[in-house]
């Protein structure tokens, strides 16, 4: 047994890779091990999002929130559910726990309305992030940090027109997400060509692949817009399998998207800087508790859209690699 083990360890050491792998990752991670930079009391902030399980975008938001929490001496709690009712129950659970601040997303505003009002009544400051710029103020939140989905969609429509596209596909991976609808509607508004919606089951990647592939085979699409970074890679695969020459574009960034932009697999990406959304939300709650500061003057604080093309891809790839872009 020990001989086998020794052989395995020996082989592993002998077969070191000088590129990539865990060690490169550790070298790259120079952050998130900080100590608090302030001496305010240890406040507790809870963040409740509409993320599904294992969502790469929300992972970046969380990593921003975590980093700000470390710096501001805040205990950060996190819960998420893609069902509106579950999300509102989770917020209720945190109200019961009497947290010092709440960060919520309003992808399903009606489901969250009552519970946000309850939080306000209990004297808990609320900041909305990512989705719900239209409702945030009416619900009594301090500020909203995110990207206006309609404006982001319009930017995509403009970019598609600029690139001379005629017939595009908008891939929605969360049925019933109002923000996603707004993106596609915004793009449809400014795009001079024709834009069709395609609904896929975002939590089931093989399904996404086959759905996009089937769609590309069934029509002469020359552009695809996916609404999340992981779906861009899948769309590239689908395009290759379908033998289509459509240009794949996407919302959001990731390491793979940055690489795809650099090697020409992808046309452009629209980034909304998720790291900033998590980081700022925690930081603003800290500012509010410490100094009663409120940012935005009642207007949403925008973190996007930022159109990223081949030119910026290399620099951003490094940041995407460490999970902050």
């Amino acid at each position, binding site marked *: 047994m020990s001989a086998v083990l020794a052989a395995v360890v020996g082989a592993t050491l002998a077969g070191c890779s000088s590129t990539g792998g865990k060690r490169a990752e550790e070298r790259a991670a120079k952050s998130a091990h900080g100590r608090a930079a302030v001496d305010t009391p240890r406040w507790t902030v809870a963040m409740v999002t509409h993320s599904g399980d294992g969502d790469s975008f929300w992972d970046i938001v969380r990593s921003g929130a975590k980093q700000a929490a470390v710096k501001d001496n805040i205990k950060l709690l996190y819960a998420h559910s893609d069902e509106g009712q579950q999300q509102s129950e989770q917020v209720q659970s945190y*109200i019961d726990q009497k947290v010092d601040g709440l960060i919520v997303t309003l992808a399903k505003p009606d489901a969250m309305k009552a519970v946000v009002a309850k939080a306000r009544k209990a004297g808990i400051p609320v900041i909305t992030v990512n989705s719900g710029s239209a409702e945030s103020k009416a619900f009594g939140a301090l500020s909203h940090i995110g990207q206006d989905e309609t404006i982001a969609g319009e930017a995509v429509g403009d970019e598609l027109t600029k690139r001379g596209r005629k017939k595009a596909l908008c891939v929605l991976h969360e049925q019933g997400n109002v923000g996603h609808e707004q993106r596609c509607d915004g793009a449809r508004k400014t795009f001079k060509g024709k834009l069709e919606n395609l609904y896929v089951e975002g939590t089931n990647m093989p399904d996404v692949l086959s759905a996009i592939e089937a769609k590309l085979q069934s029509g002469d699409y020359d552009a695809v817009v996916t609404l999340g970074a992981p779906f861009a890679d899948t769309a590239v695969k689908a395009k290759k399998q379908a033998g289509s020459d459509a240009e794949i574009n996407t919302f959001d960034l990731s390491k793979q998207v940055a690489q795809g932009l650099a090697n020409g697999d992808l046309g452009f990406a629209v980034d909304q800087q998720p790291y900033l959304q998590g980081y700022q939300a925690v930081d603003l709650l800290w500012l509010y508790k410490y100094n009663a500061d409120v940012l935005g003057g009642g207007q949403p604080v925008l973190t996007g859209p930022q159109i990223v093309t081949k030119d910026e891809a290399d620099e951003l790839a490094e940041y995407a690699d460490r999970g902050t872009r």
Partner: protein
Amino acid sequence: MSSSLARPTTPADPPEPDERLLHRSTLRRLLGRPELGAVVGAVAVFVFFSVVANSFLQLSSLSTVLYASSTIGIMAVPVALLMIGGEFDLSTGVAVTTSALVSSMFSYQMTANVWVGVGVSLLTSLAIGFFNGIVLVRTGLPSFIITLATFLMLTGMNLGFTKLISGKVSTKTIGDMEGFESARKVFASQHTIGDVNIKITIVWWLALVALATWILLRTRAGNWIFAAGGNAHAARAVGVPVARTKIALYMGTGFGAWVLGQHLLFSFDTVQSGEGVGNELLYIIAAVIGGCLMTGGYGSAIGAAVGALIFGMTNKGIVYAQWDADWFKFFLGAMLLLATLLNAWVRKRAEASK
């Protein structure tokens, strides 16, 4: 049925009369109840979270837990009855959303009093149940397949019709329409007593449990349900209307979906068309934790209610305990497995002690 059980449970068994008609001591009777194990499991889960989560024992937290349990429990009751009757329904999760969508869109499009939409929605939900039941008895296909097809069709119809009629993925608000306030009172009101917030779904839930228990234990229809689930052929041979019973059971799940769907609509004013997928499994889980056998013929409505309570406590307890959200589903699954194992173990002991 496993052969280790000391007594036969089908009423159609000749050697001894129906065990529910025999007079035994109260303790004996309690030990023989299907929900006994679930109650022990519920107590264990409750004690566990009381210890690990500081805020779990606050009254406000407990009312949140009760509410979460009731939204599972309202459906778990008719689903439990259906499973005792020997069938499955995988379309219940999305049927809840369908019921809310129909109600909201009908009222809005017809500019009718909200109660009209509520009525139409009841008819639609019962019709979906009837459809499942009639296809089952006519084709003889497994209910698993039929209701899986219904589940997929409803999922598509929820989105398709909503987009077609409202032009969006969620319905338009009906909060300003006539009858909304009175309907909200019935389906989604809440009474705050000090720190505690009692939602009306809890009342619906308990009422459904009481009704289902009465049907199961005190009526002829209850005997038919046990008989149809225990052994359909034998039941048919002694004159039990098996087909009618199963259709009625499916319509029962339709009724449950209607109640819960109206609750969602009247608490949030609008409905998201894509929700409800996956919840059907939670209702089945609640019924199974509560002592319903996957094979039919055995179980109870009270057990399903306790099963829903276990699920609600676990689901919210994890949040109160502030465990890492990444592991949420893992904890949920592990807790449910432990609760069910405890349940099975207690039941075995109870059977052995008879």
